[in-house]
């Protein structure tokens, strides 16, 4: 190896090292959480703290996923101190799923239809709608929360998961609309004209030709919407107050403020809360280019 290629290799290696360090630093919180969640209680507070657990135990995960009534235990496990969030975890998980899927479904359907309408038909105000959506996207959710809450009170939907569905539609619809609009614009109108000439009605054109072609955008928008709904805390906190109906984010946080903190349990809950998002994110990676490339987050 001559001097040049030696320099290049050194550069490459140091770049790799740097990259690894940075990545490790960024991922550390999650790695540590995972590690903690797999440790038995005795090891969690042990010094020196170890990254890789010496003993791996799944007791935390088992506690959360079993849905059994659980209590914190003091010291040697003899005295019960108070109820732990473990028994509600599965319930909360289901609630989050329901609310996320429900609001995403509504947002996607509404925004896809609307985006198609705005790009293909002519009527007063149609060009303003996407920009109006973008404006809505920029309004912080704290402003929406309380008026919407009062509306739910009037509709007698307090403490009801449906109210959260509506709330999440409020914050996901604007961006979904913007994304779908950008996507619809990139579909060449000729294939629709060909379908019209072939004999399709407008509805058939939409279902047979437009929807399949817009699928990448729909997927990207769905994933975005699901992430936003799943991760939200504010709406869940304000809209729901009975233990049974809490979403994951609010529930876990609530119990953190309780009398006793079981870090292992909490970390396990954190990991489980993040797993669905991680899966979605990996799916998003592929569609990130298609979705955002359509002009939504253009630099």
């Amino acid at each position, binding site marked *: 190896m001559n001097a040049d290629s030696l320099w290049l290799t050194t550069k*490459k290696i140091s770049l*790799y090292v740097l*990259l690894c360090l*940075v*990545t490790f630093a*960024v*991922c*550390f*919180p999650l790695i*540590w959480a995972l590690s*903690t969640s797999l440790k038995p209680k005795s090891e969690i507070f042990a*010094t020196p*703290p170890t990254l890789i657990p010496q003993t791996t135990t799944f007791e935390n995960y088992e506690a959360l996923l079993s849905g059994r009534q659980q209590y914190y235990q003091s010291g040697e496990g003899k005295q019960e101190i108070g109820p732990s969030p473990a028994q509600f975890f599965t319930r909360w998980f289901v609630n989050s799923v329901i609310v996320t899927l429900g609001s995403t479904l*509504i947002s996607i359907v*509404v*925004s896809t239809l609307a985006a*198609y*309408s705005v790009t293909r*038909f002519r009527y007063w105000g*149609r060009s303003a709608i996407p920009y109006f959506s973008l404006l*809505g996207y*920029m*309004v*912080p959710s*704290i*402003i*929406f929360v*309380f*008026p*919407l809450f*009062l*509306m739910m009170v009037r509709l007698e939907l307090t403490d009801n998961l449906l109210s959260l569905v509506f*709330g999440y*539609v*409020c914050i996901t*619809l*604007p961006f979904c609309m913007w994304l779908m609009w950008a996507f619809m614009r990139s579909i060449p109108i000729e294939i629709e004209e060909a379908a019209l000439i072939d004999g399709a009605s*407008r*509805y058939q054109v939409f279902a047979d030709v437009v929807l399949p072609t817009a699928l990448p955008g729909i997927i990207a928008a769905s994933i975005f919407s699901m*992430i936003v709904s799943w*991760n939200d*805390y504010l709406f869940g906190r304000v809209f729901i107050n009975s233990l049974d109906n809490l979403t994951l*984010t*609010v529930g*876990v*946080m609530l119990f*953190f403020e309780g009398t006793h903190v079981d*870090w292992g349990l*909490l*970390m396990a809950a*954190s990991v489980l*809360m993040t797993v669905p*998002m*991680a899966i979605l994110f990996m799916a998003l*990676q592929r569609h*990130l280019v298609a979705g*955002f490339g359509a002009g939504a*987050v*253009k*630099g």
Partner: protein
Amino acid sequence: MRRLDFLQSDRFVGLLFIAPFVVTAVLFMVYPIVEAIRMAFFSYNPLRPDLIFYVGLANFEYIFSDPLFWSSFAQGTIWTLLSILFQTVFGVGIALLLHRKLFGMAIFRGLLLFPYIVPTVVIALIWRWIFNPEIGVINYSLQSVGLISEPIYWLSTPTMAMASTIMLNVWKYTPFVVICVLARLQAVPLELYDAAKVDGAGAFRRFLDVTLPQLREVLIVVIVFRTVWTFNKFEEIYLLTKGGPGTSTFNLAVYSFEQSMASLRLGVGAATGVVMMVMLMVGSVLYLRVAGFGTEEK
């Protein structure tokens, strides 16, 4: 001009398709905002619906004379500016690192963008665990390496709490900057670098003279966007410190929340919201102006 029948029925489909959006938007977007503005002019205790009455500008007088409002505003501004600063610097740096054809880059990219999708609750909890003064791993590591002799109270002193919330914010949102910058970097024509090389520019000069100018537009847009967003963020602060210790990490969003939830003054909370919206509009106008410049120069 003759009208074609089928085009009229065509138009009907268009209106039919936009109807759900209009209904939903009016119900869940327009109405709340209008209502929020309206509420700002009322005294509103949610537990005493009979005591709701018009108070004119009283709520605004209240907040503008409340020292907590102003300290929230100042703290929020500092929090925003520092967060943005670090997000930008780190974002550009990481993007530059990632903008290479090295093996396994896709994996790195995936991992480094992860924080963006982690629920804020999760990262707040993990943070509290890691940064726990007595049993957290950070303090332990720092002490064992000898960098500090006494545990740092990450969340119990005003300065450290602010620093912690900034760190969390930077951790979570730098990926956004990375994505945008990376996208732009990938669109820079390679010939520009070649030309610079031929002209004799070294790596750092190339960064200054070729890369940075290309990034200028993206960065302006990203910074303005993120500033507006960050200023109004609620969860990132509340879940970590609840605005504390005391009220040292309050920003306007937390202030508004506390007024509404804890003090049961929905009117005041709404008034704060109105102020936040006005600032948002100012920020948007700024963005439009600046973004307009960006596209003009193209």
